[in-house]
């Protein structure tokens, strides 16, 4: 019975639904949460959902990881596509860098104003 779960379309379906849910959670969180940390956390969740989606959609049952070694010295067709994995690695690094920059800004802002709520950030705007 568990074999019916081990089919490619089923896996793709689960991953699509799951990442769509995560993306929604992330985007809604980014727009509606008031605490700065929670906003950036939600954005990280949204980005993570995209990573899961992309890698997951390229996985097919029965294929192996695209790693070369002494025995296997060229790419064959039963390996998963390596390009998405390279792309996602790069993107994860970028996301980490952006997140750390964001957190450092939040910490510095907190040191100056003691405020972590986005709707109380009123330094910018037209002064009457």
């Amino acid at each position: 019975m568990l074999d019916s779960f081990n089919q490619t379309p089923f896996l793709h379906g689960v991953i699509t639904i799951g990442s769509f849910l995560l993306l929604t959670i992330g985007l809604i969180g980014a727009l509606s949460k008031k605490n700065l940390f929670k906003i950036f956390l939600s954005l990280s969740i949204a980005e993570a959902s995209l990573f899961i989606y992309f890698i997951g959609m390229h996985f097919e049952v029965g294929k192996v990881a695209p790693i070369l070694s002494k025995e296997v010295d060229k790419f064959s067709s039963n390996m998963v596509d390596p390009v998405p994995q390279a792309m996602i690695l790069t993107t994860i690094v970028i996301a980490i860098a952006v997140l750390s920059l964001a957190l450092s800004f939040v910490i510095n802002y907190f040191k100056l104003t003691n405020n972590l709520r986005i709707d109380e950030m009123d330094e910018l705007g037209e002064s009457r």
Partner: protein
Amino acid sequence: MFNFEMTHLGNLFFGLSLIVFISLFFVKNQNRDIRLHILLLTALGFIFYASDLITLFIGWEVMSWSSYFIISKNANIKTLQKYIIFNLAAGFALLAAIALIYGFSQSVIYSEIDISKIPHYLYMPISILLLITIFIKSGVVPFHYWVVDSYEEANHVFSAILSAIISKAGIFLFILFFIKIIGYELLDEILFDIVAWFGVITSIVATFKAISQDDLKRLLAYSSIAQLGYIVTSLAILSGSGVEAALYHTVIHTFVKLLLFINIASIIYITGRRKFSELGGLLYHYPTLFILLLIGIIALAGMPPLGGFNSKFLIYTTLLEEKKGLLLAAVMFSSASAFLYCYKLIYGIYLGQPTQIKDKYRKIPLGFYIPQFVGATILIVLGILPSLGTLEFNPILSSLGLDTTSYSSLFELNSSFASFNGGALMAIFGVVFVVVLAMVMSMKNRVVNVRDRFDISYCGEVPDKDINLHYGYGIGEELKRISFIKVILKNSSSAIWQRVVNVTQDISMIVRRFYSLSSSHVGLVIILFFTILLFIGVAS
């Protein structure tokens, strides 16, 4: 890149500008910026001598912003805003018309513009855009909102330039586009009937507003608007005699306003006062100024023997030729009413009870006299030799493809209905003037001079200090009791334009809130936007 061509039309207008600028150079005027004036003169040269639309437009806009900078030294912000917004609206309407012509015709040089390539449904929009430009620049009602305040608050020399030259730019544009480039056979008759009525209504409204003004410069500003109304009406007839009448009145009006504005400038220089209620009785101290103003008044009102009569004569003749009876009646009505403000001008300053001047009666620098003498001379010369104008205008008319007027001698002005001899007129009037002057002089000793305007004790009544006894000041007060005129004077276009300004300000404040959204509202806006996008996407 810039294309120029010396045309007769350009020569006429640029010649007028040069005479005005050079004669005004001698008037003593502090904080005048010569560089801006030279820029303005160069821009005018670009407009009048351009042979392609882009050069014309460059000159037009440089004229707008350089005159803005000249005015900005004296005027306050509201007036400046009015000035530049209306003039830029005129400029942008011109730009729209040029873009439409250029987009289809592929060339901007006047002689190469191919009107047949422009689709027919565009003729009316292009004409209306050009008419908006001309109306705004010439101060035709209801676009005259900017004119009066700008003339009043600019420095006196520049008011003369504004009234004498810059208002004529619209006239030049009319002749250039509607007769030379587009050719009036292609235009709608109905449109130009409406234009003629706009001109006449402008002159009637402005005349009555002029009569009721208390400030010297505002009266002259409204008078300028009224005179330009006559020119616009005459141009809208679109025939050879119409254009000739318009050009003649342009020339006359330039010199009349040059004379009048500098006369006013000298009065303000002497007394420091600008209102009729504070002036009077300067005749005996400044008789030269009085004579010069008298010449200006006679020409402004269109009376013989001076040049003003010639142009009025030609305007009436044109209207009669084209059988526009109602227009003729309206122009005559407005022209007759113009006598009232002419009279107010001269009575209010020079006649009547004297002004209270604190200092002694100063001597006026020679510079103030030069433009006035230039203007007066030309008006007198044109009065004696009226066909001098025809001589100038015939080449222009023939280059535009219109009928020219014939003349037998320079002393005579001919039209299709009548002709008159200017030299004879001047001689008769001169003799009569001298006789009357001699009579007045001999009666001078029997006239009681009232030194103090409150000294009417022999009437048995002692007035209060704040009752103004000057008869000239009150001209126009009693007019408000005529209901037709009261309606004209009470309503003004400023209500409409002020409404537009207020609505725009309110929209601006509402719209600006979009840019200070907090993030919770952001979500709402974005979701709304994408729902709309989704519907559009699904529908297509």
